[in-house]
């Protein structure tokens, strides 16, 4: 404020400020209530949440093995898909950024397709290929679907990382006697590794919670936890142990947020989450 006089607290200013504070409180309540409700319900073992209510771990204790199977299934598929996506994306991105290949633009856009097409549509489309190949209701099928999605995110990340790496480093290494592969191993990889690690975290989380893509190709032998929770609500309504499982997913989400925030620092978090797809 460049004014030399302090603004008088007129009624309108007072109400303006008060309204703003009320708005802020309401918004924060709105943003936090789902997580709070789920956690509260999970510790009360009932659907009738009350404040403060009693505290017990009954819901957690009664989580059936099928749920844990689904949970670990999801973790395994997500881990494997993330790993494959990263391992495939890094050399591909390097080739696209440094290789000066014709049709690079087209290739970039091609790999973006799983991102652009709505997950629901892609999930339905997968059926056309998975059924004849007998990939539906299988770990491999779920993992492949996740790989396609992870690959486009992964490529976007690694392309950006490589473009941000000045070409002079590689040129210097070559002038000092390193061939392309050695340059890649000793200079490029170590320098993009931190960024790749963060990307892997984000991709892993994204894989963990993917739903619409996997819905049509999952089955009794291949049930990601999100789909398990979903179908149980449809078939049997909300059960306390399902809420507990949802609570576990919340803890996983909080753990990941903490991991990313700690490794990046709050400033970077703001930048990356604010982007189009986070």
């Amino acid at each position: 404020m460049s004014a030399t006089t302090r603004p008088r607290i007129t009624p309108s200013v007072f109400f303006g400020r008060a309204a703003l504070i009320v708005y802020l409180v309401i918004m924060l309540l709105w943003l936090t209530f789902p997580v709070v409700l789920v956690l509260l319900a999970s510790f009360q073992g009932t659907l009738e949440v009350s404040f403060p209510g009693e505290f017990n771990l009954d819901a957690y204790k009664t989580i059936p093995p099928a749920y844990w199977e689904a949970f670990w299934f999801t973790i395994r598929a997500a881990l494997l898909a993330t790993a494959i996506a990263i391992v495939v994306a890094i050399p591909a991105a390097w080739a696209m950024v440094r290789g000066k290949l014709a049709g690079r633009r087209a290739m970039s856009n091609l790999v973006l397709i799983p991102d652009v097409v709505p997950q629901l549509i892609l999930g339905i489309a997968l059926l056309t290929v998975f059924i004849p190949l007998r990939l539906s209701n299988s770990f491999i099928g779920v993992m492949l679907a996740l790989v396609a999605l992870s690959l486009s995110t992964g490529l976007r990340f690694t392309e950006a990382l490589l473009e941000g790496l000045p070409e002079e480093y590689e040129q210097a290494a070559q002038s000092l006697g390193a061939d392309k592969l050695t340059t890649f191993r000793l200079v490029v990889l170590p320098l993009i590794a931190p960024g790749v690690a963060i990307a892997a975290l984000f991709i892993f989380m994204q894989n963990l919670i993917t739903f619409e893509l996997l819905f049509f190709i999952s089955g009794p032998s291949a049930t990601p936890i999100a789909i398990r929770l979903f179908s149980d609500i449809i078939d049997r309504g909300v059960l306390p142990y399902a809420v507990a499982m949802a609570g576990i997913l919340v803890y996983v989400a909080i753990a990941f947020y903490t991991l990313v925030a700690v490794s990046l620092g709050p400033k970077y978090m703001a930048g990356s989450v604010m982007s189009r797809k986070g």
Partner: protein
Amino acid sequence: MNTSSNAAQPVHIDRVRKTFGEFVAVREFTLDIAAGEFVTFLGPSGCGKSTTLKMLSGLLPQDSGEIRFGDRRIDMLPPNKRNVGLVFQNYALFPHMSVAENIAFGLRMRGWSRADKEKRVAELLQLVRLEGLGNRKPEQLSGGQQQRVAVARALAFNPDLVLLDEPLSNLDAKLREQVRLDLRDIQRRANQTTVFVTHDQVEALVMSDRIVLMNKGGVEQVGSPYDLYATPATEFGARFVGANNLLAAKLDKSSGNAQALIGAETRLPISTCAAGVDKDGMDIWYCIRPEHIAIRSAKEDGLFAARVRDKIYQGTTVLVDLDVYGLGAIRAERPALEVGDLPMDAQVGIQIERSHAVAQAGE
């Protein structure tokens, strides 16, 4: 090969050419560099000096022509097989490696043993006067120090040729002056054949054994710093290197000696002529360096009458802008002690101590 003594190599560049589509970046470039010589490619941006450097390093393939280090033909080799040391404008030190690891990188590529590497790194740290800093990371060093690490890294494996691409442009003025001399000293002690690229003509004059003056992809002149300064070969050279007064004139050989005819009647003697300035009546530029103009009292005989228009104090010297009767506007440079109290609009006499003639472009 774990030795650190290798005789320096001469470099032969034979009609190297590079075009980007329609644009000719480097016309046929031919140059022989003696072993251990310090050659500078000098010119404005876009003249092709960096492109030529990149072709020497192998990072950019040439369209035609040959390059040899001594007897070894290298122009079809990839950069990692040429045995060339490259110092980048932004140093390009590997940020994830220590100073010592950076310097040892070229040795590592050549399979040196650990003991030999350590010894050589110590030698180089001493050469560039950075002893004791081997374990630091590049980001912990100042700009000048980083630059010296870059030089050490390029010299470590005794390359056949050392290339420096405007390495001083990121340093502030005072540091540049100091580092210029440092680099020159290092190069002499290491006895490496060196090509240095810059757009700063003072730098080129200070550091080089020979200068290749380039413009728009072509070579304007090759010669010692003195040659380029005292006797530029072209109009471009006369303008680019150092400050110069250029007066439009016609070559007049009627009296037997080369003279410049300015306007209708004024004839001035020419001290030196560029090659090709020989046809009577041709259009030339009469070039006078500011320091070759003496300012004397108006009452002396045989001098040109002039009026002082402006004085610009520069510390040790003063620039004096003069209106010279019959010649036009001329800028002189005199020691400050000499012209300190020269009043504005004073009438003086000037004497031209030395002059040079180049052909006008298009002749």
